[in-house]
C-alpha cells in the first residue's frame, strides 16, 4: 500500500494528536487515583474458594511501620506502604474461623521485600481444612456454581471471538483487551467521573462496542482485508496490537488492580448449599440474558442468519446478495459488546488491571477449541465446560494451579478429539 505524501503527513499528525490526547488523559487519571506507594494485598479463601472474612493480618516494616487489617467479606485485605524494604506479614491464626487452619503453620509469617514503589504485591496464605472438614458435596456444589458463573463470563468473551473467526478467518489475539476495555471504562466512569456504577456499566458497554467493535474493524481490520493480507499475517498483527493496547492501558491507568467504588466488598447470600453475592446474581443474570439474546440474534434475525452464511461460505453469501461488510461490522460490534460485559463481570468480583485481557485470553482460546472452532454453539458449550472444570479441579489440585488443570484438559482433548465437542469430524490435519 503506497502512501501518498499528504496521506503520510496526515497519518503522522493523527498519530501525534492521539498520543497527546492519551498522555494528557493518563495524567488526569493518575492524579485522580492516588497511588504514591506500594500495596500489599491478599485474599483469604478456603479450599472451596469461599472467602474468609474477619481474618486479621499484621504487617510490620522499616521505620517502625506497624498496622493491622482485617479481611473483608470477599476475603480481601490490603495495606499501603510508602517506603521500600522488608516487611513481615503475619496471619493471626486465632482469627481464622473454626474448621480452617494454615496448611503449614511454620509459614504464618511471610517476609515480603518491597523493591520499588508503585507496585502491588500479593501475599499468599494457604488455608486448608482444620479440625472440621467441609463435606465434599457442599464444596462441589459451590464449585459447580462458581464454575457456571466463570463459564458464562468466558462464553460472553468466546462468542465474539468465534464469530469474528467464523466470518473473517481472523484469530484475534487482541480479543482479551476488549474485556479490559469494558472494565477500565466502567472504572473510569464510576471512580473518576463520579457516576454510580449502575450508570457507568451501560455507558462503558456501549462505548466499548463502539471503540472496540466498530472502530477496531473499521480502522484496522477492514483496510487489511481490503489489501488481501494473509490470515497468519493478520494473526501476528493482532499480537502486536494486543501488546500495544495493553501498554496503552498501563500508560493511562497504571499498574494497580482497580476496584469499583461501590460493591467492592459484599457479603454472600446463602442459597441452599451455595454462597453467592447479590452482585454476582445480578451480573450473571444479565450475562445470561445477553447470551440468550445473542444466540437468538444468530438463529432468528436476518443479520444473524446472514452472519452464519458468511461464516459458512463467504463467496457464496456475497453472491447471494448478502452485504458481507455489513455482516462483519455487526459481528464485531456484538462481539465487543459481549466481551465488554464479560470484563465488567470480572471487574465486579476482582477489580480490573491492564493484564486482565492477557489472563483471560488463554481460557477463551481453550473454550473455543474445546467446543469446536467455528461452530455456533461450540463456544458456549466449551466455555461452560472449561469454567466448571477449572473450579471443580480445585477439589483435587491446589487452587493456584487451577488454570493449569484447564489447560491440560485442553491438550488432552486435542489429542483425543481435535475437532472439539461439537465440531464435525473433518480433516483437521
Amino acid at each position: 500500500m503506497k502512501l501518498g505524501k499528504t496521506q503520510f503527513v496526515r497519518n503522522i499528525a493523527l498519530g501525534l494528536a492521539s498520543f497527546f490526547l492519551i498522555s494528557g488523559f493518563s495524567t488526569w487519571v493518575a492524579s485522580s487515583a492516588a497511588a504514591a506507594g506500594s500495596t500489599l494485598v491478599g485474599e483469604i479463601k478456603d479450599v472451596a474458594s469461599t472467602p474468609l472474612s474477619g481474618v486479621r493480618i499484621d504487617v510490620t516494616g522499616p521505620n517502625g511501620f506497624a498496622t493491622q487489617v482485617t479481611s473483608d467479606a470477599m476475603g480481601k485485605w490490603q495495606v499501603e506502604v510508602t517506603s521500600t524494604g522488608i516487611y513481615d506479614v503475619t496471619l493471626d491464626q486465632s482469627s481464622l474461623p473454626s474448621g480452617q487452619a494454615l496448611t503449614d503453620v511454620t509459614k504464618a509469617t511471610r517476609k515480603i521485600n518491597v523493591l520499588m514503589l508503585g507496585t502491588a504485591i500479593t501475599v499468599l496464605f494457604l488455608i486448608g481444612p482444620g479440625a472440621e472438614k467441609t463435606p465434599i458435596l457442599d464444596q462441589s456444589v459451590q464449585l459447580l456454581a462458581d464454575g457456571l458463573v466463570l463459564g458464562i463470563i468466558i462464553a460472553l468473551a468466546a462468542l465474539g471471538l468465534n464469530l469474528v473467526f467464523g466470518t473473517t478467518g481472523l484469530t484475534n489475539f487482541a480479543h482479551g483487551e476488549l474485556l479490559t476495555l469494558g472494565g477500565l471504562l466502567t472504572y473510569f466512569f464510576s471512580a473518576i467521573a463520579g457516576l454510580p456504577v449502575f450508570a457507568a456499566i451501560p455507558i462503558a458497554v456501549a462505548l466499548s462496542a463502539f471503540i472496540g467493535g466498530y472502530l477496531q474493524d473499521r480502522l484496522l481490520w477492514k483496510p487489511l482485508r481490503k489489501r488481501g493480507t494473509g490470515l497468519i499475517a493478520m494473526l501476528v498483527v493482532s499480537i502486536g496490537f494486543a501488546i500495544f493496547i495493553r501498554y496503552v492501558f498501563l500508560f493511562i491507568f497504571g499498574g494497580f488492580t482497580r476496584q469499583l467504588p461501590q460493591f467492592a466488598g459484599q457479603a454472600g447470600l446463602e442459597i441452599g448449599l451455595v454462597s453467592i453475592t447479590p452482585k454476582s446474581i445480578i451480573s450473571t443474570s444479565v450475562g445470561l440474558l445477553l447470551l440468550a439474546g445473542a444466540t437468538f440474534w444468530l438463529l432468528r434475525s436476518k443479520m444473524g442468519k446472514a452472519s452464519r452464511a458468511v461464516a459458512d461460505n463467504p463467496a457464496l453469501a456475497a453472491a447471494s446478495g448478502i452485504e458481507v461488510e455489513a455482516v462483519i461490522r455487526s459481528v464485531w460490534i456484538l462481539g465487543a459488546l459481549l466481551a465488554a460485559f464479560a470484563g465488567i463481570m470480572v471487574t465486579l468480583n476482582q477489580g480490573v488491571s491492564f493484564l486482565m485481557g492477557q489472563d483471560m485470553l488463554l481460557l477463551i482460546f481453550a473454550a473455543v477449541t474445546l467446543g469446536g472452532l467455528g461452530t455456533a454453539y461450540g463456544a458456549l458449550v466449551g466455555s461452560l465446560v472449561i469454567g466448571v472444570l477449572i473450579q471443580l479441579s480445585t477439589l483435587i489440585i491446589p487452587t493456584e494451579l487451577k488454570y493449569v488443570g484447564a489447560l491440560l484438559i485442553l491438550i488432552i482433548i486435542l489429542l483425543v478429539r481435535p475437532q472439539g465437542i461439537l465440531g464435525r469430524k473433518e480433516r483437521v490435519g
Partner: protein
Amino acid sequence: MDFIFIAQQSFSAALGVNTIIFALAAIGLNMHFGYTGLLNFGQAGFLAVGAYSVATLVVSFNFPLWAALLAGIFNSVILALLLGLPTLRLRADYLAIVTIAAAEIIRQIARSATFNEYLGGSDGITGKFGKDFFALNPFKSGLNTPFLRYNGNDLWVVITGWALVIVVLFVMWLLVRSPWGRVLKSIREDEEAVRSLGKNVYLYKMQSLIIGGIVGSFAGFVYALSRQSVQPDNYGTALTFFAYTVLILGGAARVFAPIAGSIIFWFLLVFIEQMLRQAVSAGYIPEWLIGVNQVGQIRFMLVGLGLMMLMIFRPQGIFGDRKELALDARA
C-alpha cells in the same frame, strides 16, 4: 542530554546479553516458523525449561554446572516431544494454541507455591549457580570504551554468548542447505505433496521442533547464567512475542536474520528509552505528557506498534525477499 552516555548504552545493548538471548530464541523460532511453518507460540517455555533446569539442579540438588546444562538440553527435548506428539498431526492453529497453553502451564507451575521448595515460587531462584562459569572468566575487569561498556561478568557472558551464537548459526546454516533442510522448506509449502513423495512429514516436523527447542533452551541458559537468577514471570507469552518480533524484523527464513533483528531491536529499544528518559528529566518533554515512570511503558507500546507496522508494510523484514514472500499463496 548526554549523547555519549546514550550512545554507549545503546551500542552496548545492541551487542549485549539481551541481544544474545533473543537472537538464540529467534534462531530456534526460525527453525520452527521460518523454515518449517510451525506456529510455535510457546518458545518461552523452552527458555524456561533451560533456565530452571540450570538454576534448580545447581541450587537445590548440587549438580555440577555442566551436568545441569546437559540436563537442561535433555529436558527441552522432552518438552518438544510432549508438545509435538499430540499436535504435529493437527492443523497449524492447534499447535499455536497448545504451545501457548504449555508455556503458560510451565510458568504457572514455576511460580506456584506448591513447588516453592524447588522452583522458588513467584520470587524465583537467585543464587550463585553460575559460579563455575564465571570462574573461567579472564576478563574480570570488564570493558570501558566510548561505545561499549560492560562489567566483568557481563563481558564474559557477551563473549561466550556470541561464540555460542556463531556456532549455533553455523550448524543451522549447514542443516538448512542440506537435503534435510529442503524437506523442511517443502513441508512449509505443502505437506501433502511431500507425503506423496514418500517422506514422513511428521518425523521431520518433530525433528525441527526438537532442534529449535534446544536452541531455545540455550537462550534460557544465557538468561539464567547472566543474571544468576530466574524469575517465572520473565518467561511469559510476552517473551515469545518479542522473539517473534525480532525474527520478523530480521526477516524470517534467512539464517542470520535473527541476529540482525535482535541487534537492531535492542539498539532501538534502549536508544529510545534513553532519549525519552533524558528528555523527560531535562524537561524537554513536560511531565503531564510522559511521566518518568511511564518511559518503560512507552517502549513496549512501541514494540507492539512496531510489530504491527512490520507485518503490514514490510513482512519480509529487513533482509527477507519480498518476492519470496509474495509467492506464498497462503500468507
